[in-house]
């Protein structure tokens, strides 16, 4: 399928498609502005079919922007859940700052406003030669281009003793849902004076600042309800995202309630005993927990492995300009499943990547060169109520590789005053409202 490949005109502006797409990528949810000026099209051949697997930050964004940019495209989103709960802000839920339902989003806007066909099934398998998806309901779905945004799956057993049964006793809560509720119930049941132990993995993993925000919010809960308790963070790394700011915030709000043990201090856990709530470190120290939260080693969502797009790292190598699979042409992979370092595995970046992939797919269908993308990320973390910290960066492709734009970002200053930190916490809330509106059309409640 092809057409003239010329740029289109947005009513009232003379912006080129290239610029428009670039801005959407760059400004994340600011791309909504483009919705008010939908493009005008000439007649074209029968619509190409795009299937999108996964209705999270990456997939829902890709589906929406494909339809927004080209309403006559045939776009189907395959996502088992009718209501999607975000991992972002589950830590705030655990800390008692946020109601769980406020983290739920549905697919009504995608269907009703943008005309995405939403199928609430699982994609069980991918036939890349026949260009078909096999669905859990028994049906099949044909596609001309495929987008996979399945997020992560746990590498069960990669950490000795940590399998699915163990996760029912020592939850990971690294996917939002039953695991999150389990952790919250255990937290409520924990005795005052107990020790909460979090096991943090090696890179790469979903949400680099996540484990540190997690213990912050747990400490907030404990300080409020069970002040004699301790938090121990056993880490397989010697340094982590926003480390200085986290340490500063912990000292400020929690004194020495939180203890962090890094790799060189024997922080790496090599075995979990979920029945006894014990972990063993590399040099043989046994730590016993009242409540054990294991953030385990991860890999790309299983469907990516079925599609044959992963490599031996367990993640998906992609072409940096387009996020098309390096291994299977016609398959685009976005979000946590990809190897996109130095970009983090964040919802913010998955949303950007969804827009970039949408633009690249349209260019590919038109036989045009894909627009040159720019991505951006901001990771907010909330350490205590009204106390936020931030890291931001802009990324582009240089010499065929994804790179940080030098000098484009950084962490928020250390030693900032309470008002500054309160503003950062507000930015985090505003970001959440903005991005969930961009992806799922949600309106903040209350």
């Amino acid at each position, binding site marked *: 399928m092809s057409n003239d490949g010329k740029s289109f005109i947005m009513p009232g502006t003379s912006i080129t498609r290239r610029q428009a797409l670039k801005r959407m990528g760059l400004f994340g949810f600011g791309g909504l502005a483009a919705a008010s000026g939908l493009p005008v099209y000439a007649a074209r051949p029968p619509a190409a079919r795009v299937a999108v697997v996964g209705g999270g930050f990456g997939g829902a964004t890709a589906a929406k922007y494909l339809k927004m940019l080209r309403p006559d495209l045939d776009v189907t989103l395959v996502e088992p859940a009718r209501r999607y709960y975000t991992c972002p802000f589950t830590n705030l839920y655990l800390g008692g700052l946020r109601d769980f339902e406020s983290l739920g989003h549905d697919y009504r806007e995608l269907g009703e406003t943008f005309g995405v066909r939403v199928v609430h099934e699982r994609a069980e398998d991918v036939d890349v030669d026949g260009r078909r998806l096999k669905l859990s309901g028994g049906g099949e779905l044909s596609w001309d281009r495929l987008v996979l945004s399945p997020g992560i799956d746990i590498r069960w057993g990669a950490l000795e003793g940590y399998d699915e049964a163990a996760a029912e006793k020592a939850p990971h809560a690294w996917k939002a849902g039953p695991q999150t509720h389990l952790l919250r119930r255990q937290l409520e049941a924990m005795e005052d004076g107990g020790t909460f132990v979090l096991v943090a993995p090696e890179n790469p993993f979903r949400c680099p600042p996540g484990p540190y925000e997690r213990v912050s919010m747990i400490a907030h809960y404990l300080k409020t309800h069970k002040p004699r308790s301790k938090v121990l963070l056993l880490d397989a790394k*010697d340094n982590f995202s926003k480390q200085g700011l986290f340490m500063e915030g912990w000292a400020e709000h929690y004194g020495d309630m939180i203890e962090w043990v890094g790799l060189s201090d024997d922080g790496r856990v090599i075995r979990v005993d979920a029945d006894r709530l014990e972990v063993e470190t590399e040099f043989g120290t046994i730590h016993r927990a009242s409540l054990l939260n294991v953030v385990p080693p991860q890999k790309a969502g299983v469907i990516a492995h079925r599609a044959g797009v992963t490599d031996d790292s367990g993640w998906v190598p992609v072409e940096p300009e387009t996020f098309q699979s390096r291994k299977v042409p016609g398959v685009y992979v976005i979000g946590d499943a990809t190897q996109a370092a130095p970009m983090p595995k964040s919802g913010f970046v998955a949303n950007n990547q969804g827009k970039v992939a949408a633009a690249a797919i349209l260019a590919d269908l038109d036989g045009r060169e894909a627009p040159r993308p720019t991505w951006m990320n901001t990771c907010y973390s909330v350490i205590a109520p009204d106390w936020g910290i931030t890291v931001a960066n802009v990324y582009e492709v240089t010499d065929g590789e994804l790179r940080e734009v030098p000098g484009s970002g950084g962490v928020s200053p250390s030693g900032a005053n309470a008002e500054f930190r309160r503003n950062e916490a507000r930015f985090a809330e505003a970001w959440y409202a903005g991005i969930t509106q961009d992806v799922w059309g949600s309106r903040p409640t209350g």
Partner: protein
Amino acid sequence: MKGIDLKTQETTGHEARGAPLNPGRRRALRALAVGAAGAWLLGRGALLGESGGRAVWERLDAARERLDGARPEPGAIRLDLPGVTQDGSAVPLTVDIEHPMSEEDYVEALYLYALGNPTPEIADVYFGPLAGRARLSTRIRLNQSQTVLALARTSGGRWLAGHRDVRVTVSGCLSQDGTYDFDSLMRTRIRVPPRLRSGEVGDVRTLIDHPMETGLREDRQGRTIPERIIKEFRAEFEGTPVVRVRLYRAISANPYLRFPVAPDTSGELAFHWHDDQGESATEAARIEIG
């Protein structure tokens, strides 16, 4: 993300020289320094860019000198390194060589090089047959995306080679300063299997607290921080060498060494570390066979 955290690292560094700290924070600060101490000044660019059809070992003077005209055989050396790493200051590396370890024929030496570092040597490793298997794990510094090369020599005089490419997305290059908490300097940790069956290959882990200062960094005033590294590590079982390592500055702060041991009688495994300022440390543990 490490590169841009430096502002906070420096601030924390100031604090470290000020008020007393609780132990949890102390550890944390020390570990911050570990990251910073992993930093390299930018080298004089990549040593070599494209392969140009030559074998990897042909691209490195140090390797050609070491080989002295011999042509190494590919295939037997397996290097385990992440294909992409976000932290060039501590990249986990395992080298495993498929070759007998009998008195008659064993791997006696293993040389490791990082082709894109300012100085390519990582470590020279000498095995005894008592190791049971020619395998070593450690953590290394890589200041940019590059190729890691391993050359091994067997007791029969054969040479083996293997290599692996690594992409480093955030290098340790940007740091100018960092602190290292010298309180625990030369503190050691070991893990030795207390019991093995005869012929069983056991797994030994060691770590020593040491900044492994590269000599390539500058402090805030722009003065070069002098090199200070652990130079040598030895493990001996009842006086017989199991493994001896010559470490270079590409070994990460707090050197971690993991290797096998396969004794056939009970006895004591002794460990020795020496740094280049004359400091040393020793440790020992018993292994029972049966």
